């Protein structure tokens, strides 16, 4: 594994993991969760 190989590995993993964690953080902390449909509430 060359140093450049490590650079590509770390940057790629950092990008995809960072993007997913940031996105889910935004989704989970945002207000206004979708209302549950009647069939979910009524069982």
């Amino acid at each position, binding site marked *: 594994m060359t140093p450049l190989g490590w650079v590509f590995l770390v940057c*790629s993993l950092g990008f995809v993991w960072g993007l997913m964690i940031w996105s889910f953080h935004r*989704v989970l902390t945002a207000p206004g969760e979708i209302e549950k449909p009647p069939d979910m509430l009524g069982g």
Partner: protein
Amino acid sequence: MSSSSDHQQQWGTRVGVILAVAGSAVGLGNFLRFPGQAAANGGGAFMIPYFCALLFLGIPIGWAEWTMGKYGGRKGFRSAPAILGVFGKGAVARYLGVLGVLVPLAVSFYYTYIEAWCLGYFWHYLTGGIGVDAAAPIAEQTTSAAQFYSELTGRAENGIMTGGTFETFIFWVITFGVNIWLVFRGISKGIEKFCSWAMPAMAVCALIVLGRVLTLGTPDPAFPEQNVINGLGYMWNPNFEALANPQTWLAAAGQIFFTLSVGFGVIINYAAYLRKNDDVVLSGLTASATNEVFEVGFGGLITLTAAFVFLGTTNMIVAVQGGTFGLGFNTLPVVFAHMGVFGNFIGAVWFFMLFLAAITSSISMYQPSLAFFQEALGWSRKHATTLMVAICVGGSFLVMYYSKGGIFWSTIDDWVGTFLIFVLAMVQIICFSWVFGVKRGIEEAHLGAQLHIPHFYRFIMKYVTPTYLLVVFVAFCWQNLPSWLKSVADEPLRQGAVGLILAVIVMLVVMVRVGERRWRAAGLDLDGTRPPDD
């Protein structure tokens, strides 16, 4: 126009719809196709065109599909033909929208069969392995694995009940039954609920296998160069010369295109069950990011690293050339055999993970046709499901019966699962950016959005994405169409597969015609001439 019970169907939670779309995108290709493509096209350097394609091709088309689906849903439509008719403002786009039903339906004919293989491998690893002897020479081990694969998949000869494939037929019945049961339960209770546990379960399986692979060290002291670090290097060391080769850029664009399930007809249908003020921008990005973690974060670390550690550079070349299925079903079983007492356990976890990846994709393939049958024919969910099951059983039976050499199903994969996906994606992005208008389209996307699409994406979605897609499509046709056409002309089995595709297209076109009359009679805006009523 869907039946009233179908109109009540909606996603239960925002995370649920994201996991369902991500589950649709994550499939065998994330773990098997991506690493092979990367290693063969510049290693780490492949990630440059790969991420360019993600930003300029995959994510914009995904946003367009999410937006079209939600907008179509507001107008009372759930299916691709009806929704594309609205965005394309007329019958041409509506009939081209048939591809949004055909693609998932026809791909499901063989996808559940492949899913059954994964279940079969999982079962065999759970009950003692597939008979690969780690003490034998590597060539002999590969032959054993290939023989098992050939028998399980019926490649040796045609016929479901012959050639040792009856067992696979049983696995297919189980797989298909689970799929239909989940889809019949509905969007929220079936698909969403299943994906909400299947996706985390898949991640846990991937982490278990990844943990084992990264702790393999140097298993054979006689070959010190065959270690985990060099295995990672095989996949990630960059070869910048590859960037000068157009093939690298084509491969990267193709990989992004297929991995995100854009142009597949699924996202547009799933998004039709959203409400007016539900977010699509952040949800689309999150679903894409989740898919990328499974592809780059897991697929990019597990598959080739494990294979390299046990097989070395020479055998790796053969393994990568074996493609998706060669790598997954012939090479990795040899690797598991070398893992000692944990080998069968890791093999079982691996194939269970592939099974979950496949089933979260396949359930998404049934929903578009189910929604279309209900909408076009005005049938109840029960009757529409019965029709869909009948078509799928017929299609899958042909795939399983004509199993020799995998010719029949690979022809459907070539023409529907590859060629027509490009066509549908182009229809979608042109309808969104040019006919409906990119400015209006992005305004629709921003209704309820928790993230705004950057302003420069107007330019990208109008000019860059269609051009990028067109270039990739033309290059793809240039490379593949002559040989594909010749093989269809030469091979009766391929002609049969193409005949099946054409028969399904004719059936769907007739249904669009029936649907048009119903939608007009109901006063629906099927040509997209007025704003939504809500």
